Every structure is written in structure tokens, then in C-alpha cells.
């Protein structure tokens, strides 16, 4: 262990944490390593690096926010201790506008990874399973459109990555001659994150269908099994073509509820 610490291959904390989490989540799986590939695609192999980068950004954002939410953004400031009344500019949201621009930029690549893994689930060349995860491909299109929806969401997120905080406006007869566009950045970030939850739900649904078609439910590790069961509690296995929109939305709500509750409470 001491030797490992010395070699320090790439000790970026976010990456290390994600790899650690995933090792733990997969430790009791009997389903891994069946495909005998020499190397996995980047959408799998580089998860710790890409998720880790997002985690680093999030920690930066949270640290800054915890300062900002306990700050005074008023003007003028009334300081009774010194009998001072001071005009300043703490209402300027630049630090927050910039972190809000950073959020979609940090998270959009995660959605792109999901979309690429979807390809690997839906394409028989990679999965060894029926095309689009349906038993009668041709008559049925199965989850063909899952990828379209996910790709559309990823594309929308790329557009939402356009920074707002570099824009400005000059108002009030030139007295207020710089602005942060923070709320615009905030609305974009909220929308991008909502899109990512939908992408996340679509991958979860297709992965669960692949688990069923590969008949490996019994081999899943405990963590994946819990997720699989959560998916199946709102969306049963797809036997023949049906409207997908409602399944996607129901699962999005279910997963969003479950994970945000766990995060906040």
C-alpha cells in the first residue's frame, strides 16, 4: 500500500471516489466479465475520469455556495457596530453565474456517456442481444427510439452549455454598466439537470430490459438488483411494442424522487 501511495498514478480525488464507489457497487456481481473483450469502450472504461471531473466541479460549486448563502448581498450595507453606511456591489452575482455555467458543462459529458452506452445495449453487435432489445425485431421496434430521445436530450444540453456569465447589459442610464446574467445561467442549469435525469432513466430502463433478455437477474450484485427492482416497479419488461413516453417519464420521476430524497434528507 505504501508503494502505491508513492507511485501516485493519478490521484484526482473525484476520480478516486467514483472508482471506489463503483468497485463497491459491483463487488458482489456475478454478471461482469462475460463478454471477454480485451478493452471496454470509453463510455464504460472512462466513467471514473468523466464522473470524477463532474464531482470535482460540484464540490467547488457547493463550497462557494455555502459561503454565498451566508453572505450579505444587500446595498447599501448598514453597519451599526461602526456606525457606517456603505455603498458596495455585493448584489453582483458573477461568482454564482459562473458556477451555474460550469454545472451544465460538467454534467453534459455524463449524458453523452449514457447515450453511448445505450448504443451498446441496443446494438446486437455489442450486446449479443436482439436488436433494440425486443424479441421480434422487425415487427417490433422495441427501444429503437430510446436512443433518439436520449440523443435529443444530450444535444439540447450541449446548447444549454453556452455560457451566460460572459454576457452583460448596460442599464439605468449607464450607471449599472455590467451584469452577470446569473438567473439565465440558473435556468439553463436546472433544465440541463432535468434533461440528464431523463437520460439516466432511459438508460436504466434499457439496461433492465437487457438484464431480462440476457437472463442474468440472479447474477446481479445487490446494488444493481435494487435498481433493477425499482425500475420494474414502474415499468414492466417490454414484451411487444408500446408507447414508451409514459414509461420514460414515470421512471424519471421515480428515480429523481428516490435519489434527491436520499441526497437531501
Amino acid at each position, binding site marked *: 500500500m505504501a508503494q502505491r501511495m508513492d507511485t501516485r*498514478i*493519478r*490521484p484526482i480525488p473525484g476520480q478516486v471516489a467514483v*472508482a*471506489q464507489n*463503483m468497485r463497491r*457497487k*459491483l463487488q458482489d*456481481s456475478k*454478471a*461482469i*466479465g462475460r*463478454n471477454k473483450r480485451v478493452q471496454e469502450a470509453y463510455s*464504460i472504461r472512462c*466513467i*471514473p475520469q468523466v464522473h470524477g471531473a463532474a464531482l470535482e466541479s*460540484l464540490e467547488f*460549486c*457547493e463550497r462557494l*455556495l*455555502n459561503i454565498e*448563502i*451566508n453572505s450579505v*448581498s*444587500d*446595498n*447599501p*450595507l*448598514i453597519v451599526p457596530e461602526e456606525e457606517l*453606511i456603505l455603498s458596495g456591489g455585493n448584489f*453582483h*452575482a458573477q461568482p454564482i453565474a459562473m458556477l*451555474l455555467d460550469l*454545472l451544465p458543462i460538467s454534467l453534459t459529458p*455524463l449524458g453523452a456517456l449514457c447515450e453511448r452506452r445505450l448504443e451498446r*445495449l441496443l446494438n446486437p453487435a455489442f450486446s449479443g442481444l436482439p436488436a433494440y432489445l425486443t424479441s421480434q425485431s422487425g415487427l417490433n421496434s422495441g427501444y429503437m427510439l430510446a436512443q433518439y430521445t436520449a440523443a435529443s436530450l444530450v444535444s439540447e444540453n450541449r446548447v444549454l452549455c453556452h455560457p451566460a*456569465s460572459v454576457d452583460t447589459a448596460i*442599464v439605468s*442610464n449607464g450607471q*449599472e454598466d455590467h451584469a*452577470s*446574467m*446569473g438567473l439565465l445561467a440558473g435556468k439553463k*442549469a*436546472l433544465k440541463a*439537470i432535468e434533461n440528464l*435525469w431523463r437520460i439516466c432513466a432511459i438508460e436504466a430502463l434499457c439496461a*433492465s430490459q437487457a438484464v431480462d433478455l*440476457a437472463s*442474468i437477474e440472479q*447474477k446481479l*450484485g445487490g*446494488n*444493481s438488483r435494487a435498481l433493477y427492482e425499482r425500475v420494474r416497479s414502474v415499468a414492466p419488461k417490454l414484451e411487444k411494442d408500446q408507447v414508451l413516453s409514459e414509461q420514460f417519464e414515470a421512471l424519471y420521476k421515480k428515480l*429523481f424522487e428516490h*435519489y*434527491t*430524497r436520499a*441526497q*437531501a434528507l
Partner: protein
Amino acid sequence: MSITALIHILFQLPIKGFCGANLALTQNWKLFKKPHTTLINTKLNTYKPLAISSLKTFANHTRANLKDTVFLDGNSLTVQQVYKVACFGVKVVVEQNALEKVEKCHDYLLKALKNKTIYGVNTGFGSLATTRISDSDASQLQENMIRSHSAAVGSPLPKEVVRAAMLLRLNTLAKGYSGVRVATLRLLEEFLNREITPVVPETGSLGASGDLAQLAHIALAMMGEGYVYHKEEIVPSRVALEREALNAFKPAPKEGLALVNGTQMTVATACLCVIRAKALLSALEDVACLTIEALGASTEWLNEWIHA
């Protein structure tokens, strides 16, 4: 329910029922927990008592309070607490020591006002700062400002964003550098705890001087103008105030500016984003693991040597 919780409820019932003072439930709870704390200064409580429509509502209110109230002092709020209050209806209470600071600051402002020119207090706003406003117009100035700055357009912002913004403004006012009255903090606290959420259109902020228009819509609702969600229903603000037996806000000097000048709507979105993004990372890890297992992928790339 624990015995302590039961005692708390019994302790609160007579106060709510007979005293008529608008002591927030959790303040009572805090007094009960810390018997040596100085009694709450009743002059700080200027609003009418909570109208309890049913015992059931009251019991829910009480239970929520006992379980996880967020106490605000301007210095110790966390992003996670913002999410709890904004999205899960957790109650808030401003700490007594913070209220005392707020009151001192307000008193100093009133004193200073007599012999100083103070931006936005006895002058106009923005480039109109060169116009001196007479003392007799000081309140009217703030009222005019709240109305004229309520200029946002578009769809309403999500309720949880507006709740987060109210909480954040309450916390910044609790630091005691804004010169507002304690009663003004109390009304914001009541808006949060009674689920009165102003309808705030989403577009019109430049992010400096903060989110002027959006925050003005919140102050407008406090004045009993504009619209609010009262729990789930959209009603004129005046109606929600009447239903909850709350007095409409009538701004004192500086109070319009103190409610409107700030980054809180932007920061509100950022707080919600960070918690949702953290939850998302955890969900995406789980989902990726499920895909990895479904595909029977190898996990050599997770080896500890690579990530250390």
C-alpha cells in the same frame, strides 16, 4: 411518538390556543429545551396568531417542527438545508440572537437617516440616486420601488426556486446589516412556513443589481399585491394573507431595497442544481453499473492502481 415529543405538543397547545401571541412553535420548543434562554421579546411579534383550521393540520405542523426545523442566524445555513426547506416543506425559524442584531441595525438606520444622504433610502434608485427624497416620502419611495421593479415576464418560476429564494433572503436579512424591521423577517418566515409562495415570472433579471425584478415580485406579494400559490392553489396575494390572518407588509425606510437588491433567485437555482446534480451522480453510477452487468463487461479499468 416519543414522550419528549408529546410533552412538546402539550406545551405548545395552550400557548397557541390561549395566549394569542404569535410565537413560532419552534421558538417555544427551543425555550422548552433551553429553559435559561431569555424570553422572546413579545414586541418582536407583530402578526396575528395562526388560524388553526383543524387539529390534524396543527398536528402535522407540530410534527414537522419537532422533526427538522431549520434555525437561521445568517451564518450557518447549508445548501442541503436550503433544499429541504424549498422542496420538502421543512419549517424555518430565525434565531433570537439574530433578531436582536436585526433590531439594533434598524434602530441605527433610523438614527442615521436624520442627518445623512443614504442611497435608496432618501434618494432615488439607479441613475436617479442624485434625486433627494424627503423624509415624509421615505416609505412611499419603497412602496413605489417594489411596484415599479415588479417587471418580470414569462412563465412562473418553479415554486421550490421561489421558496429557496425567500429562505436565502431571510437568512441574509438575519445577519443584521440591512436595516429592516424584525416584523419583515417574521413575514418572510410566515410565507415559508404557511406555504405562501409568490408567483414570480422567470425573465427579467440581469444578475446585477441582483435579481431585482424577481425579488420585487416576492416583496409585492408581501404587500398583498400580485398573486401567490397558497399551498397548491393560485390566489391573489391579498386573499392568502386574509386566510392566514397575516398583516400585509407596509415597507419602512430602506425595506423595499433590502428585499429586492440581491442575488437570491440566482443562488436559489444554484442550490437546487447542486443537490440534484449530486443525487444524479449517484444515480448515474448505479445505472452505469447495471449496464455494465447487463453487458457482462469487464472491470479491469476500475483497478485500484489506476485510480490512486
